[in-house]
């Protein structure tokens, strides 16, 4: 597909650019992807920064990870020592490892905000359902990658976290135990497990890159949603991505890097668990096995399900935990409202905050021992988590009276201008 209408002025007049562009339209393609030829709603607020920040996180993880692998040894008797070798003897090894370990947390912070942005402004609704699906797949891949990465240092929480999570599959009837043994590559979490997790931890980020390319492709089909949640009506509603959103994203990157650097340099172990500085020991179980913080809400759901009729608590918990993510795939149809943005949905707007508090409650519960008040909080939040999606969203969509939508994205701005 020769690019016959490639521009010839300005940047494109440069003979080198011209030579390359004629043979490989890389400049114009980029320009259409994230440049001046990509029209973007002019009213995006800073919540729209988190997509590009998530991309940045993945790049940081891949780059630091590739270098860490040069010094890491995936073997049960050497992994822990090789991580300490990185921390003590490799030039800036401590920096690489702290960037990578905290980078995982940053990635999840950014992606959780990105998802909540989508929930609040209805970014999952028609015609962006597949964009949303790809996002959920990205979340699942991130979770798998993060979980397997946490196993690699082969500390106590690595080992016991891997044991607990892989054991979940034994809840499945009939095929449960064979699946667990197949995952382990033996009859316990051991060297084969570590090796396959290492292999997959290296592979999955590149799968993520592929899915993210599809995610961006789907995004470009209709462009970004926006805080008003209404469609772009014409060129007066948009501005070119570059330079407007490249610079706005850069501002976000600056603040994000400050936040990230605070953890790397001043609190590098704050988000980790002390037990992971103890080498893995299959004979000593930590008092409280907790996953990384970003899994705590799901961990709470897992532990909150009691025996229900003939379904054992363990199987119920596993189904609920995976269901908590699977339900996101149904979201575009569970939300019956035609209005996208919560700004024009007075009831749903309040409920999104209730939902956020529910998620935080689940996170709190998941980090505490499964007893007493935290367990009760976990159970209440688990019930509401599913009620929110399965009952509240469909009903609110039917009964709620949305406020009047603006006629176009530029209308409120123009009105404000006229009033001045």
């Amino acid at each position: 597909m020769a690019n016959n209408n490639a521009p010839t002025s300005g940047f494109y007049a440069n003979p080198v650019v011209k030579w390359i562009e004629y043979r490989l339209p890389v400049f114009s393609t980029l320009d259409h992807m994230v440049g001046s030829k990509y029209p973007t709603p002019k009213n995006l607020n800073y919540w729209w920064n988190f997509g590009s920040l998530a991309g940045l996180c993945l790049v940081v993880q891949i780059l630091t990870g590739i270098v860490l692998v040069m010094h890491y040894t995936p073997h049960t008797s050497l992994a822990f020592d090789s991580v300490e070798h990185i921390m003590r003897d490799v030039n800036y090894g401590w920096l690489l490892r702290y960037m990578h370990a905290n980078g995982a947390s940053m990635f999840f912070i950014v992606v959780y905000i990105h998802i909540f942005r989508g929930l609040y402004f209805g970014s999952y609704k028609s015609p962006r359902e597949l964009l949303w699906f790809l996002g959920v797949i990205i979340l699942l891949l991130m979770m798998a990658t993060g979980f397997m990465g946490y196993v690699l240092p082969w500390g106590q929480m690595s080992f016991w976290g891997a044991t607990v999570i892989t054991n979940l599959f034994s809840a499945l009837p009939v095929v449960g135990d064979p699946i667990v043994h197949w995952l382990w590559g033996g009859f316990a979490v051991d060297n084969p497990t570590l090796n396959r997790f290492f292999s997959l931890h290296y592979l999955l980020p590149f799968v993520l890159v592929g899915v993210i390319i599809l995610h961006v492709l789907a995004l470009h089909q209709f462009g970004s949603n926006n805080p008003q949640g209404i469609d772009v009506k014409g060129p007066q509603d948009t501005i070119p991505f570059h330079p407007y959103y490249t610079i706005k994203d850069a501002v976000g990157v600056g603040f994000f890097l400050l936040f990230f650097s605070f953890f790397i340099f001043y609190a590098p172990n704050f988000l980790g668990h002390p037990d992971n500085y103890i080498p893995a020991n299959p004979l000593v179980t930590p008092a409280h096995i907790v996953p990384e913080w970003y899994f705590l809400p799901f961990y709470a759901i897992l532990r909150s399900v009691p025996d229900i009729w003939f379904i054992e608590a363990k199987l119920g918990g596993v189904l609920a935990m995976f269901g908590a993510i699977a339900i996101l795939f149904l979201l575009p149809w569970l939300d019956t409202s035609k209005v996208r943005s919560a700004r024009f949905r007075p009831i749903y707007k309040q409920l999104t905050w209730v939902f956020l508090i529910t998620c935080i409650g689940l996170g709190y519960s998941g980090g505490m021992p499964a007893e007493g008040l935290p367990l009760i909080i976990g159970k209440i939040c688990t019930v509401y988590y599913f009620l929110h999606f399965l009952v509240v969203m469909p009903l609110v969509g039917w009964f709620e009276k949305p406020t009047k939508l603006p006629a176009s994205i530029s209308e409120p701005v123009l009105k404000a201008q006229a009033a001045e």
Partner: protein
Amino acid sequence: MRKDFAPMTSLKLLAAAVVVALGLNGPALAAGDADPAPAVNWSFNGPFGTFDRAELQRGYQVYKEVCAACHAMKFVAFRNLADPGGPGFSAAEVKALAATFEVTDGPNDDGEMFKRPGLPQDKFPSPFPNQKAARAANGGAYPLDLSLIAKARPQGPDYLAALLGAGYTQPPAGFALGEGLHYNKYFPGHQIAMPKPLNPDQVTYADGTKATVEQMAHDVSAFLMWAAEPKLEERKRLGLKVMIFLVVLTGLFMAAKKRIWKDVH
């Protein structure tokens, strides 16, 4: 207990049984009922904190003369004692210090292991040849490797200073102390296998500091923090530069953004 997972529960029970059977009181048992350690105002706290060289040197002395009788530190080499951001021994001091230890090397060309004086690149020699030997010499309890202990416990150095210092008290009336165990109010479960390690004037500090139990506990805890995080000073120093750079960069981005968006309505 139904809310838990059956295999996990049985694994936990098994592990707990193993731990009890070995007479070892690890963190696996009853964590959470220990007193919180009082916060110490360490010289290395805060974004500009650095280690106190004299404190680390004293701490090393306590480790060497007291702790090292039972505890290994396999990730720390003699040469590290001269690294920047550490106790600040000179290269010559480290060489002399390492030579006072006997290290097993080999095999030589005859296939024999042999002893030689320590060299700066040697890791701290372990007091026992293996874990079984360590347990056999310590009533079944395994003296942990201390290389990372300050990062492997909640509250790190605060906890260590409290545990080694004021932690060893008389058990409250009616407290059933296990055989061969010692009461420590900061230890999870309150029963620790390690006997009270520090007593007044146990070491004679070269710099004339009075070797009270609190002083030695403080010094050795600082030393253990350095051993666990030897790049702490380098990290905080680089952090400051990075933060300043990022503040300027972000400021420039904000100014550029304002300018570029000036005409957008």
